[in-house]
């Protein structure tokens, strides 16, 4: 029975490779890292999209790690017992909100906010870093990164909270009995005790951010150039595919298949690493559904 599933997966991977091959035979191998995407001139460089994918994910994860970890700690150790389960369930439930809804909300509600308030504010205090050049458009890398952050947070929090909560209480008490303050206990005993799981949660969340399509496509501005600032409009591999697939033909279509293949490889790698780290915690079945 499992053979059916494995068969499907194999078919999946093989067909992706097969469809992408024409692009490789026509364009060689280096096209993936070229920086110009211009179908009319037969240029299919994927670099801007790879960078866009990486950059939006980076913004999301730089925020998701501390905030996710802090929230998870709060849920596992700081929040009063009675409220604990309710709040945790609420956070997990929010992982179920469809990504397209986040995209809609980001585009209509956050983009103007970013354009009018957030970006000017950030530029005024962080402009010296050189990362905030250019006009305030609202849509762009920054907004996409923030939306991704909001979307992967429940994943990060849910898994981290689980692994933090199962650190044996005898270790917590052992640290307390030695005269550690509450934070010392958390920092030196609880978090290190859960670190593999936390890393797994982080990787899983990263995987989700890397592969997110519609929410990003709606708020990133879809410009096929390498971003020179955090406020620039840009694009990602999934957005590229989803925007152009309908009308692409010939080499361009093969190039899109190639982009899909790259995405596939990234997806497999990141998720495989994540799963090795997380090793299916106790919530296995439900976790796969809620978390993935």
């Amino acid at each position: 029975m499992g053979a059916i599933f494995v068969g499907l997966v194999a078919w999946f991977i093989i067909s992706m490779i097969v469809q992408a091959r024409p692009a490789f035979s026509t364009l060689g191998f280096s096209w993936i890292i070229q920086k110009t995407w211009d179908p009319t001139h037969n240029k299919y460089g994927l670099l801007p999209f790879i960078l866009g994918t990486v950059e939006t994910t980076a913004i999301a994860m730089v925020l998701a790690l501390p905030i996710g970890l802090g929230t998870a700690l709060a849920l596992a150790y700081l929040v009063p017992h009675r409220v604990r389960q309710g709040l945790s369930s609420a956070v997990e439930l929010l992982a179920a909100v469809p990504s397209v809804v986040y995209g809609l909300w980001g585009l209509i509600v956050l983009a103007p906010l970013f354009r009018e308030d957030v970006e000017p504010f950030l530029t005024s205090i962080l402009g010296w870093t050189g990362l905030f050049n250019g006009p305030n458009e609202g849509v762009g890398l920054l907004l996409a990164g923030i939306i991704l952050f909001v979307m992967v947070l429940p994943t990060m929090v849910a898994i981290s909270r689980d692994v933090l909560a199962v650190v044996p209480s005898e270790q917590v008490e052992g640290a307390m009995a030695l005269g550690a303050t509450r934070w010392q206990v958390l920092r030196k005993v609880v978090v290190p005790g859960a670190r593999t799981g936390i890393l797994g949660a982080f990787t899983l969340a990263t995987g989700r951010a890397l592969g997110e399509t519609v929410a990003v496509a709606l708020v990133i501005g879809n410009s096929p150039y390498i971003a020179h600032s955090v406020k620039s409009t840009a694009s990602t591999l999934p957005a590229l595919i989803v925007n152009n697939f309908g009308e692409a033909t010939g080499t361009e279509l093969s190039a899109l298949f190639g982009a899909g293949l790259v995405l596939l490889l990234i997806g497999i790698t990141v998720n495989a690493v994540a799963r090795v780290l997380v090793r299916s915690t106790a919530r296995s079945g439900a976790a796969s559904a809620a978390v993935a």
Partner: protein
Amino acid sequence: MTTLTLDASTDPILERRRAIQDAAATSLGRRKISSKIAIGICWAFLAIAIVPLVAVIVYVVVKGLPAWNTDFFTQSTVPEGIPGGGVWNAIVGTAEIGFFATAVTVPIGLLCGLTLAESDGRIAAAVRFTADVMTGMPSITIGIFGYIAIVKTTGQYSGLAGAFAIGFIMLPVIMRAGETAIRGVPRDLSEAALALGARRATVARRVLVPAALPGITTGVLLAVARGLGETAPLLLTIFGNQYLQWNPTKPMEALPLVIYNNSSQPYANLLQIAWGAALLLMVVVLVLSVGSRVLAVFLQRERR
């Protein structure tokens, strides 16, 4: 202080004790403040985490509810520039695709899950690992697969291609949920049945699956919730359809598609419909998610 030791002034233990108590007392203030600040930050982060999540729900409700009128539920989608419109064709599409995807995936997934639950070999481990990895795959790649597998071969976009892609996303989730649920059933139950002479398959059907039903239900409902909310795969497989289309072998419309397409439209009525559809989708997904937990708890109680 104990009175046991010999010479208080040179006893290394007493000296160390003094040094340690000194260090403890001097550092206490600093440590307590650090602790308060760090814990305060954790609370702050909790607040930060909740705010956007609450905001999304509030906005969707506030902006989506006004869109819910009779037209919304009875009319089909309209192209740009035309006033009015609804999402009836999208509701039909989503429902049909969901139905087909679930109808095929649940039996296969549960069977796979059952097999996995009964095996501990390396092949099983590999399948399990593959399933776990697949649950996190970018959904657009699965959309591409749906295109290659169905659209290309049949020469047209169709609801079934969408169902195929969505089903493929749901399959590993159901497999793992099923396996976990079945593994959670106490061994003595199945062993008792086997001891009475029942065949493995019968045991599975009449003992294991019913006993694991709460967990299975949760898993399935959550998988469906996830499947219904996926957009990217649909974009590449069902193409969308302005008109009501019951035939799944033809291009169809779906709720996530409507939201996606209308989001970037400048027309107010289309945007309104997008919010309404977002609310509808969110309600369905949340009802399934919450419902799955409630159902699981309810079924657990029934078992006792």
